[in-house]
């Protein structure tokens, strides 16, 4: 028998050349492919650069080294590296009759011995005619001609291997294989690989005699080895690549593997069904692979199998086919992932995909890499590799949709959990960071998006990222641009606070979570010592530790300072309390304040607490004056309800004068008296222009109710006295400037109650029928106020005033010290703990002074202008 199965076990230690021997064998010059050279030498560089003995190279390592891999793979997998001098082998081969060769290959592949090369016939399942018949004369003639023949034989075989084989192989790809012609492409790969393999086996056989050993230039030369080692290299050499369009070959290979995959899938699906239904029920459309009428999937799979074996044996798998396998399979994976998951964020798909991998991909892989019995470790590694690839593909798909997924959080939790698993397997962090940053920037950070939406998205983003990565590194890497952006939107604090103090909603929920409690919880589910991982080195250290903070802390930290945030809260609270039609229940505000106190500490919110107390005290006071039994003011015509405030604790009220109608000022006086009577030594200073008034006006028997500001009510009061007013007169009567009057009277003109009869003269409309918006049905709940109408000084204005206070001090400092840097001025001002002012704010303030020429700036120092 000339079969490989009866060869001795593949003892590789015996069959290997040491590196030193190799070097001795191939003392090679550095050769370029460009120059036509002795073919032997041309390919020597491939050999030269073998990093070590191949058996030391793990399969994975092999697949990475590019040009060496085919050879290395082959040398591991084939028996031919057995020392040809080994007597037993030699004798056996020599004793074989050439005619019996082909039949001997029919014997089954020798799985047991681990021999990878199969009988030629196995590759020749389709008709292939060896391009030339080998005449291993060396085996027949034992005469004097022996060595001459041997050399001739050697020449012949080497010439074939080096010159003919590539042509034979590549020619299969050169005929016009159109893209849609799947089958012909498939066939091309099949033919190329199997025919080459067949020829290759024959050639090797020809070389496998003793005569393949010659003295070449005084050196021992093993042509057999040389061919084994170099065929893949020769095929893949750049010279060969010049002959064919490698990109096209790649395409063809893609088609080949795609076809194989499809066919395989159809078979697998069927094999799950009953045998009968497989035969009867299959639609032809389902089996797109088969262009013919009858399904040839089984056939295709078997050809596919053969072709892959051939490629494997030729050592072309890693170099030529491997990348295509990966390309095809990633494409299939992407497709699969898209089909399974796109838009479906509420469910986890990872099991489904893993199933698919197990059912569809791995069996296919087994066919593509028919080396299962070499070592299960290899195939196990390969399985791992592909499941990693799937995770990567899936992870990337999730990342692609990350923005939408974040918006849908927490419904999208399942898919985020998947992402977490994917990130565990594949290094996706940088992709996630970059893609999401980009998506956020593009879709969120532009003027068209409302602050509310930005904030919601930010919250979701933080929560979703924390969900994916509890350590917070992702939050730290991704969110800073959003934070920076929010910081520069003016209404952000207000929006944060509004949503924070709403009755429901994410932030309100977050607020009601006791911070100390959640901290404790975090500590409990914290990592134990052996789970701890150091931070990745490429993560920037932040001043504020975003990673350990919760959502509210993260939001507050946008502003860098609690105090600024609290100031803004106070303004918001004041605004709310003042907009109440009268001092009423404030349970919600109290609850909210209590929650904020847990977070920010009592002392920081002291002023707010007093404000709320003022409201409830006022409520009690009003009840006492009007509603209690024997109440002093119970019989008054005009009910003035007061909100008595502790001015030191409220934002500053704007000063604005307003003359009240006598009836109202009388009522104010009585209220004050009543107040003084119960609160010894205290009196009231009314803010005439602040408050809410409900009036009813009636013309032609149609009563209309309005809720408006005191100044609007006063204007209307004057119209009840006289129908027409010159604006100067009216302004004087109201005690306001003409400009203010013009502003305030707009409320009435817009309602069709008053009209400007002639420039500067206003007249009461004769009938109110034309009232736009039908305000008698639904008087607007609150007086419509523009920001200018609002009685409180805004926080930013307030802060500016505070800074102004220190201007004289700054001036004095600079008079004495001539020039100071920003930081020094800031540290001086910081000592006034009552003024919270960031360096930026101070700088802005000082720069303004510079622009007003009150200050000069040079060399990083501020000084007074000379």
């Amino acid at each position: 028998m000339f079969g490989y199965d009866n060869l001795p076990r593949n003892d590789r230690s015996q069959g290997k050349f040491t590196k030193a021997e190799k070097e001795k064998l191939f003392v090679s010059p550095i050769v370029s492919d460009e120059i036509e050279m002795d073919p032997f030498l041309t390919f020597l560089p491939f050999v030269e650069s073998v990093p070590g003995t191949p058996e030391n190279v793990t399969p994975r390592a092999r697949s990475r080294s590019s040009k060496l891999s085919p050879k290395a793979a082959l040398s591991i997998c084939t028996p031919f590296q057995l020392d040809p001098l080994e007597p037993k082998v030699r004798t056996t081969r020599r004793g074989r009759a050439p005619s019996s060769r082909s039949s001997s290959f029919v014997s089954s592949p020798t799985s047991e011995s681990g021999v990878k090369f199969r009988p030629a016939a196995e590759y020749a399942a389709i008709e292939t005619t060896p391009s030339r018949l080998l005449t291993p004369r060396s085996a027949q003639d034992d005469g004097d001609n022996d060595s001459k023949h041997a050399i001739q034989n050697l020449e012949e075989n080497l010439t074939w291997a080096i010159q003919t084989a590539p042509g034979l192989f590549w020619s299969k790809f050169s005929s016009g294989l159109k893209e849609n012609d799947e089958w012909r492409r498939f066939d091309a790969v099949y033919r190329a690989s199997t025919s080459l393999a067949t020829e290759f086996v024959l050639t090797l056989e020809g070389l496998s005699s003793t005569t393949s050993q010659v003295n070449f230039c005084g050196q021992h030369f093993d042509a057999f080895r040389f061919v084994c080692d170099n065929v893949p290299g020769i095929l893949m050499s750049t010279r060969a690549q010049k002959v064919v369009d490698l990109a096209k070959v790649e395409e063809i290979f893609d088609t080949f593997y795609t076809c194989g995959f499809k066919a395989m899938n159809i078979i697998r699906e069927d094999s799950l069904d009953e045998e009968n239904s497989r035969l009867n029920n299959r639609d032809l459309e389902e089996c797109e692979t088969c262009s013919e009428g009858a399904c040839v999937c089984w056939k295709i799979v078997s050809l596919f199998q053969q072709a892959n074996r051939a490629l494997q044996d030729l050592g072309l798998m890693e170099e030529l086919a491997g990348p295509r396998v990966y390309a095809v399979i990633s494409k299939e994976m992407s497709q699969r992932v898209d089909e399974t998951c796109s838009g479906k964020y509420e469910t986890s798909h990872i099991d489904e995909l893993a199933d698919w991998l197990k059912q569809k991909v791995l069996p296919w892989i087994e066919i593509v890499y028919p080396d299962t019995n070499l070592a299960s470790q290899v195939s196990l590694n390969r399985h791992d590799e592909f499941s990693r690839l799937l995770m990567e593909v899936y992870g990337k798909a999730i990342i692609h949709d990350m923005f939408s997924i974040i918006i849908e959080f927490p419904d999208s939790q399942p898919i985020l959990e998947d992402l977490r698993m994917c990130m565990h397997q594949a290094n996706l962090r940088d992709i996630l960071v970059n893609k999401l940053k980009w998506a956020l920037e593009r879709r969120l950070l532009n003027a068209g998006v409302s602050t509310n939406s930005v904030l919601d998205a930010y919250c979701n983003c933080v929560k979703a990222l924390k969900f994916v990565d509890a350590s917070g590194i992702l939050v730290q890497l991704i969110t800073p641009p959003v934070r920076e952006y929010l910081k520069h939107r003016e209404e952000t604090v207000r929006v944060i606070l509004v949503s924070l103090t709403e009755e429901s909603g994410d932030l309100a929920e977050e607020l009601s979570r006791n911070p100390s409690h959640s901290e404790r919880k975090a500590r409990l589910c914290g990592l134990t010592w052996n789970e701890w991982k150091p931070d990745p080195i490429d993560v920037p250290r932040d001043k504020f530790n975003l990673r350990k903070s919760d959502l509210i802390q993260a939001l507050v930290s946008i502003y860098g300072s609690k105090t600024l945030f609290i100031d803004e809260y106070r303004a918001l609270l004041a605004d709310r309390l003042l907009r109440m039609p009268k001092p009423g229940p404030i349970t919600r505000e109290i609850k909210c304040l209590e929650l904020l106190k847990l977070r920010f500490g009592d002392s920081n919110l002291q002023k707010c607490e007093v404000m709320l107390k003022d409201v409830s005290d006022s409520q009690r006071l009003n009840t006492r004056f009007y509603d209690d039994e024997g109440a002093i003011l119970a019989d008054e015509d005009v009910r003035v309800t007061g909100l008595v405030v502790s001015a030191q604790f409220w934002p500053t009220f704007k000063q604005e004068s307003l003359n009240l109608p006598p009836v109202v000022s009388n009522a104010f006086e009585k209220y004050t008296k009543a107040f003084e009577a119960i609160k010894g030594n205290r009196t009231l200073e009314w803010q005439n222009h602040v408050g809410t008034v409900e009036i009813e006006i009636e013309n032609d028997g149609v009563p209309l109710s309005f809720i408006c500001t005191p100044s609007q009510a006063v204007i209307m009061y004057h119209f009840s006295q006289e129908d027409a007013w010159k604006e100067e007169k009216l302004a004087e009567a109201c005690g306001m400037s003409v400009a203010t009057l013009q502003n305030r009277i707009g409320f009435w003109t817009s309602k069709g109650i008053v009209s400007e009869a002639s420039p500067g003269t206003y007249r009461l409309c004769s009938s109110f029928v034309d009232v736009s918006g039908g305000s008698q049905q639904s008087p607007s709940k609150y007086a419509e106020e523009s920001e200018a109408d609002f009685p409180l000084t805004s926080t930013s204005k307030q802060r500016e005033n505070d800074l102004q206070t220190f201007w004289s001090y700054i001036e004095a400092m600079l008079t004495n010290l001539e020039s100071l840097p920003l930081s020094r001025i800031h540290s001086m001002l910081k000592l006034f703990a009552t003024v919270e002012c960031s360096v930026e704010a101070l700088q802005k303030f000082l720069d303004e002074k510079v622009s007003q020429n009150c200050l000069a700036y040079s060399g990083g120092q501020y000084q007074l202008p000379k």
Partner: protein
Amino acid sequence: MKFKIKSWNSVAIWKWLANDDKCGICRAPFDGCCSDCKIPGDDCPLVWGVCSHCFHMHCIMKWLAAQQNQICPMCRQDWALKSDLP
């Protein structure tokens, strides 16, 4: 045209009827509270001396406790609480 006020809700700032706007001892506004209090008004009242100077009650008590002579920290006259309120 008939004009009727159904309700008039306004804001008033309460003030102590004092001859100064801040306490001479803690130098905080009377309408605020002394350094140890959190809530102004009833909880941190003012007291008047016969010399007519007034202080946060808590402040003057600390002053008197720290001195051997019970004198007004403003005018250094003997300190006595004014009995009848203005």
